[in-house]
């Protein structure tokens, strides 16, 4: 199991220094050693810049010079590098496998993101990712779900066992006017415009607000609603502009 190590890396280490640690770690893994020249090559920077960065990392006790030019990670440095790398790989996989991004873009996104996550956020993210991995049907049904960014929306299948699919199909089709007297729901979205929308918002019909259809008038119109502790009468046509999610 992967766990994010408690912070061994000083909190103020910059993202570029983290990248150096990562590069050195990879070089050592591949060829057993790392040199300024190779680091500069891998990071596409000048050797002079590498030297500056290495001096700073040495000050932080993350790297040490074995011989002239040959650089090794301290125990602390290795730990920190492994952590950065784990993050990078995990994020890349997340963008690539779950969010279906192309490999290059996924890696770039991971680079941009890996430095800004706190340890705690990363830890939680790792747990979530592990959960996804341990339960492949979740990712599968997400990919099929019309909510996902599947390239072919038409091919997306609705899964009757999937709560997301069920909820989503309700967002598409269900309005306050579809409730029967006594049924409850939660406001999802107001589709009305202008004066009606303003009035509904003034009445507190905001997204995620619970709402109940208490009764309907003769012939089913108008509707008698309870929302934010108030009783309101709405015409059916107006109620149908309020998208809701039905509650059991």
């Amino acid at each position, binding site marked *: 199991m992967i766990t994010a190590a408690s912070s061994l890396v000083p909190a103020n280490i910059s993202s570029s220094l983290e990248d150096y640690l990562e590069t050195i770690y990879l070089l050592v893994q591949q060829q057993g050693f790392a040199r300024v020249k190779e680091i500069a090559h891998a990071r596409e920077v000048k050797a002079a810049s590498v030297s500056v960065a290495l001096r700073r990392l040495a000050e932080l006790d993350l790297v040490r010079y074995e011989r002239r030019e040959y650089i090794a990670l301290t125990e602390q440095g290795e730990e920190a590098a492994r952590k950065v790398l784990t993050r990078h790989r995990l994020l890349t996989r997340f963008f690539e496998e779950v969010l279906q991004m192309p490999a290059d873009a996924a890696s770039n996104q991971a680079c941009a993101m890996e430095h800004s996550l706190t340890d705690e956020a990363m830890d939680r993210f790792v747990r979530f990712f592990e959960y996804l991995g341990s339960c492949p049907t979740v990712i599968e049904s997400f990919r099929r779900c019309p909510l996902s960014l599947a390239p072919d929306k038409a091919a997306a299948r609705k899964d009757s066992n999937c709560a997301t699919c069920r909820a989503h199909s309700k967002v598409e089709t269900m309005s306050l006017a579809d409730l029967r007297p006594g049924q409850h729901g939660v406001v999802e979205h*107001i589709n009305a415009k*202008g*004066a*009606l*929308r*303003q*009035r*509904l*918002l*003034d*009445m*507190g019909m*905001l*997204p995620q607000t619970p709402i109940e259809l208490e*009764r309907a*008038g*003769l*012939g089913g*119109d*108008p509707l*008698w609603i309870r929302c*934010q*502790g*108030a*009783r*309101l*009468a*709405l*015409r059916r046509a*107006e109620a149908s502009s309020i998208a809701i999610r039905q509650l059991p």
Partner: protein
Amino acid sequence: MTATALTLVHDKVTQGLRIALAGNPNCGKSSLFNALTGAHQHVANYPGVTVEEKRGRTKLDGLNAEITDLPGTYSLSSFSPEERVAEAELATHPDVVVVVADSTQLKRNLVLLVQVLQAGANPVLCLNMADEAAAAGQRLDVAKMEALLGFPVVETVGHRGEGVSALKAAILKAAKQPLIKHRLVLGVEFERALTVIARELPTEEDARAHEWVALKLLVGDPTHTARIATRKGGQGVIATALAERARLETLSGLEIAVYTAERCFGFVDGLLREVSLHPARANARELTDKIDAVIVHPLLGVPIFAAAMYLTFWLTFSVGEYPMGWIETAVAALGSWVTSLWQAGSESPLRSLLVDGIIAGVGGVLVFLPNILLLFFGLAFMEDTGYMARAAFITDRVMHRFGLHGKSFIPMLTGFGCSIPGIMATRTLENERDRLTTMLVLPLMSCGARLPIWMLLVPAFFPAPWRAPAMFGIYALGIGLAMLLALVVRRTVLRGAEAPFVMELPPYRLPTLKAVVRKMTERSWLYLKKAGTVILGISILMWVLTAYPKPESFKVDRDIAAGTLTVSDDTTLTNLRAAEALEQSFAGRVGKTLEPVFAPLGFDWKIVTAMIGAFAAKEVFVAQMGIVYAMGNVEEAGADDLRQTLTRHYSPWVGLSMMVFLLIGTPCMATFAVTRRESGSNKWALLQFFGLTTLAYLLALVVYQLGSLLSA
């Protein structure tokens, strides 16, 4: 007291304080307004709109204060006339704005407070109906609320006058404070957007309203955007507002209106969480729920509604009949007393002006008063208990089919008694378009004054078995046309997006007699003062039209002198003279001039002349017909003779054409005056008058021409 505060107070002493009351509908604002101002009130309409403007005076610790009761609104968006009026009043920066909130509905009510703060006011928060909230178990830490908000917060029970002195003290305290800029924490990004927009506002904009205008531009308010667009540099700030809106919408993933509302509700939520000591019980409103289970029950709801309507109708017209009789008797007695001041048979024009013009005119105004008082007693009772909203809930489905509102039902029903109280009852409709539509078609409800006309004409032109169906038909025609016309009006002159119906159903409350009586007298007084003067004026004009010019000598007398005519008794002679006088009068001359215009409808000058008289009051038609046919006062003689005369003179098709015209056309002068007063402009009264008269002409034309074709 500091020196600046002293000068401030000094200013207020010389100029007087300006105080505005803002609040949601049903928050009990009016009772607080009454408690604050007592009898010193002035009620009018804002120019050109149906929104009531209420101002009152009071003394606060020796200071003169003018209090404005703003129309009840849920927010300060500019979608309805009420909201525009309230916003415009706040833009004049009253010294203190009292935000009245229903303590049992604080969440929604305090959103208005947020907007009032944004508009840059010096506020006092008044937590009204505190007794109800307390009874429901809700307890608030008012002191903490005051500390958090930074301005006075008072608890009141408006209808019992509790907490009013504390409110007055709070108003004074707020007035003495220099205007503090209240910072609302509605979110960093939201504030940033407002600051960015406000910075670019044209310099001539009122600095106190900068944040408000910035907010309005941010949410894309059409009124403010259009106004700013014409200013120098206006386009730039509008572009900035658009960019900020896009930024906030992207950030939040919500439309700006929803985002803003969410921010406001979020603020209120946070505030209430801070100050709540104990929340209201969940079942606090169960009594209202129990009553509603019966009142709007699928089976019981309609019978209960019918009973309530019958009771109102009975109260207004059956009970009202007695005082109406007294007024008529008193006016008649006054008339005969004034007549007795002159010699019998005197032709003094002054006497005629006093008796037939002024006294009759005043009588014509006063005679409606019992109806209006009683109807408004009933309406105020229904409104204050909360039943009115339920009644609208029950009737809306039917009324909405015809472009009307559930609340149009009661005014229309009242119209069967009399159009005057009916038109005044449209005040219960909040929406201007709904109100105007109802008002415009209301005279089509066949009123009580038209009943004598039907009683005269139906037996004259219909054989006995057809009389009941004919009566029914004339009422049904009125209702049908009203509905049809309402649809037409909504598609033509009052076209436009439908106003939201979204209607609050307030909890049932037992109204105080004081409040109900106050509402009743307030509205009746408006009728007397504003409509009454017009009715009196037209009455005198009508008197001139029917009494002048007087014939030099009567042809009847000449014929008798010449021996070509013998008259059996004095009454016949008087009647013949009266007929001749009417023929010679302006009304008679106009009738004769218009005869060719109305000939295609089958009318002769006599009918037209009688109809001119009917403008004074519909039932006058019967009397005028009696006079032109030299029958004297038909009411006294009984209408049988006149009926036979009519049967002899006119074909049934003329009769039907007459009925159609009298049902639809020429609403009476009181209707005209009241429509003018209630709609706030001549435009609607004139449209109603000429629109209905044109329709009447066309339909009567079709009836007569078709009838003549059929019988030929």
